[in-house]
C-alpha cells in the first residue's frame, strides 16, 4: 500500500530573470512503513518537493496524494497526517521545551487527557525529559533537533518528514539522531521521508530516489542502485593523466572518469585485478585505491558530478553567519 503517491509533479518559480523549474515532472510512490530517501545536491528540488507534500507550496501542475488525501483539496487532513522536521530550526526559543510541545499538541488537537503522557514519552525518547522546563535558547543544536523530532511525532503522524535532519550537526550528534530514527521505526508504525545529501545517511534507506536539477534520475534500493556500478571502484593518481587514461581504456575496455581527485573506473573482482594492473602499467602511479561502490559513485556515474558535501556545508556556514548579522 502506498502512503504517498506523486504523479507528474512540477513546480515553477517566477524570478526576476524568468521562470525557474525547481521540480520537473516528478513521479514516485512511497510505501507504507518505508524509510524513503531523497538524495541530491543542494538546490536539486528536495525541499521544494517536501514543501508541496506538506502543503506549504502549491504545485504548478501534477498531483500529490498523501495518506489518501490530495494535498491541494484536503490540506488540513494532509497536515494532520504528517510530522515535520525542517531543515532550519522552527522552535520558539523563548518558550520551554515542554511549552513548545504543548503548543504543537494543542494545534494538532491532541486530546488533553493524553497530552501530558505523550509529551513525557516523547521527551524521554529523545533524552530531554530532564530539560523539559528549560528555555529552548539554552539548548545546543543537537538538542533542538531532537526536540523537533519529538514535536513532529507528538500527534502520531503517518509520515514523518525529515528535511536534512542532521545538517550542521557534529558527527556524534548525527549518529545519536540516527539511533532515535532507528528506534522509532522499530516501535511505531510510521513512514519516514528523508532528504539528505550525506551518502552514508542515504545508505540507511529502504529506497532512495536520486534527484538532480528537479528530476528523479534513479529510484531503487541502495543495493540495487549500486549494482549499476560494474563491480569495484578503482581510483588512482598518475603522473601523466591523459596517457594513463588512454592506456586503461584501451587495455581493459572500461570508461575512465576524470576529476580533481584523479582517475576513476569500475572493474569486477578488484582485489585480484589490482596486482596485475600495477605490474602491467606503463605509466607512473602515484597512488591507488580500491573500494566498494557507494551511492556517491552512482550519483557520479549518472550525472558526471560529485554531490559535494563540503560545498553544502559552506552554504550552511554562510547562511548561519548571515543570520547572525541580521540580529
Amino acid at each position: 500500500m502506498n502512503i504517498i503517491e506523486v504523479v507528474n509533479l512540477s513546480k515553477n518559480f517566477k524570478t526576476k530573470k524568468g521562470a525557474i523549474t525547481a521540480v520537473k515532472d516528478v513521479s514516485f510512490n512511497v510505501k507504507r512503513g518505508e524509510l524513503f530517501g531523497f538524495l541530491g545536491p543542494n538546490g536539486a528540488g528536495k525541499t521544494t518537493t517536501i514543501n508541496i507534500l506538506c502543503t506549504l507550496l502549491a504545485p504548478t501542475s501534477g498531483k500529490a496524494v498523501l495518506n489518501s488525501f490530495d494535498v491541494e483539496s484536503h490540506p488540513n487532513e494532509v497536515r494532520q497526517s504528517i510530522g515535520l522536521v525542517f531543515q532550519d530550526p522552527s522552535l520558539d526559543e523563548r518558550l520551554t521545551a515542554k511549552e513548545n510541545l504543548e503548543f504543537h499538541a494543542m494545534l494538532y488537537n491532541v486530546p488533553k487527557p493524553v497530552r501530558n503522557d505523550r509529551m513525557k514519552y516523547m521527551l524521554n525518547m529523545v533524552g530531554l525529559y530532564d530539560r523539559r522546563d528549560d528555555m529552548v535558547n539554552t539548548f545546543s543544536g543537537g538538542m533542538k533537533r531532537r526536540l523537533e523530532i519529538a514535536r513532529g511525532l507528538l500527534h502520531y503522524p503517518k509520515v514523518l518528514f525529515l528535511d536534512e535532519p542532521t545538517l550542521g550537526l557534529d558527527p556524534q550528534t548525527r549518529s545519536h539522531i540516527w539511533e532515535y530514527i532507528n528506534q522509532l521505526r522499530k516501535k511505531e508504525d510510521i513512514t519516514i521521508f528523508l532528504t539528505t545529501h550525506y551518502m552514508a545517511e542515504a545508505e540507511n534507506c529502504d529506497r532512495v530516489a536520486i534527484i538532480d536539477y528537479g528530476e528523479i534520475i534513479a529510484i531503487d534500493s541502495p543495493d540495487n542502485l549500486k549494482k549499476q556500478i560494474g563491480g569495484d571502484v578503482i581510483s588512482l593518481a598518475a603522473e601523466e593523466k591523459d596517457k594513463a587514461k588512454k592506456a586503461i581504456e584501451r587495455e581493459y575496455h572500461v570508461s575512465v572518469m576524470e576529476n580533481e581527485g584523479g582517475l576513476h573506473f569500475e572493474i569486477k573482482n578488484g582485489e585480484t585485478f589490482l596486482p596485475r594492473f600495477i605490474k602491467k602499467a606503463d605509466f607512473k602511479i602515484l597512488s591507488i585505491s580500491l573500494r566498494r561502490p557507494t551511492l556517491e559513485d552512482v550519483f557520479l556515474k549518472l550525472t558526471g558530478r560529485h554531490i559535494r558535501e563540503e560545498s553544502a556545508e559552506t552554504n550552511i556556514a554562510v547562511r548561519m553567519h548571515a543570520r547572525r548579522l541580521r540580529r
Partner: protein
Amino acid sequence: MNRNLMGIYTIWLRDVRRFWRDRPRIIGATIQPALFLFILGTGLGKGIIGAFGKDLQGDYLSFIYPGIIGMSILFTSIFSAISIVWDREIGFLKEVMVAPISRWAVAVGKAFGGSTVAVFQGCLMLFFAPFVNVHINLIMVAALIPLMFLIAFSITSLGIVAAARMHSMQGFQVIMNFLVLPMFFLSGAMFPITNLPKWMDIFVTINPLTYGVDALRGVILGMNNYSLMMDVGFIGGFGIVMIGIAMVIFGKGE
C-alpha cells in the same frame, strides 16, 4: 471550526505567555509613554497652555493623558503584530503554517493575542491617573477596557496586514515612520484637533486612532469631538475591514 477555535486560543496563549515573560519589554513599554506624559507634557504644557485658551478645561497633562493611553495601545499593538515577521525569520511561523488549522485562524489568533497584550499595557497606564489630576472610578474602568480592546484589535489587525508579506525586520523602520508615528501625531493625542489646517484635518479625520483617543478622552475627561457611537463605529468598522484583509492574505498562504 472547533479546531480553528483551538488554534486561535493556542496562538493567543503563546503571545500572552511570551509577553508576560518579557519583563524588560513591559517596563520599556510603560516608561516610554511616561516620558511623553510627564516630560514632554509638562514642558509643552507650560508654553502652550495659553495658546489653547479655553479649549483646554483643566491642565495640559490631563488633556494628553488619554492620548498617551492611546499611544501606548498603538505602539504595543503594532509591536505585537510585527512579531509575525520575527516568527518568520526564526522559522517558527512554518510550524504554525503547516498545522492542521485554517490559515485565517492564525491571523485571528495573532490579533487577539496582540490586543490582549495592548489592553494590559493600557491598563498599566491607568495607574498614572493620580499624577495628572485625573480621577478614575470602577465604572470608568469597566467602560475603558472594552474600548481599549476595540482600539487594540483594530490596530493589531492593521499591523498584521502590514507584516503579512514582510520578510525581514528592516521593514519595521518603514512601518514606524510611515504608519505608527503619523498615526500618533495626527490623532489629537497631544493637541486639540479643532481649527487645524485643511490638509491636516483630512489626515486627522481618516485616522482611526483619532476616534480611539476621542472615545478615551470622552470617558476619562468628558471631552468629545464626536459622539461615542461614532467613535466606536469608526474604529469597529476599521477593525473589521483590517482583520478581514489579514484573514484573506493569510488564507492565501506564503
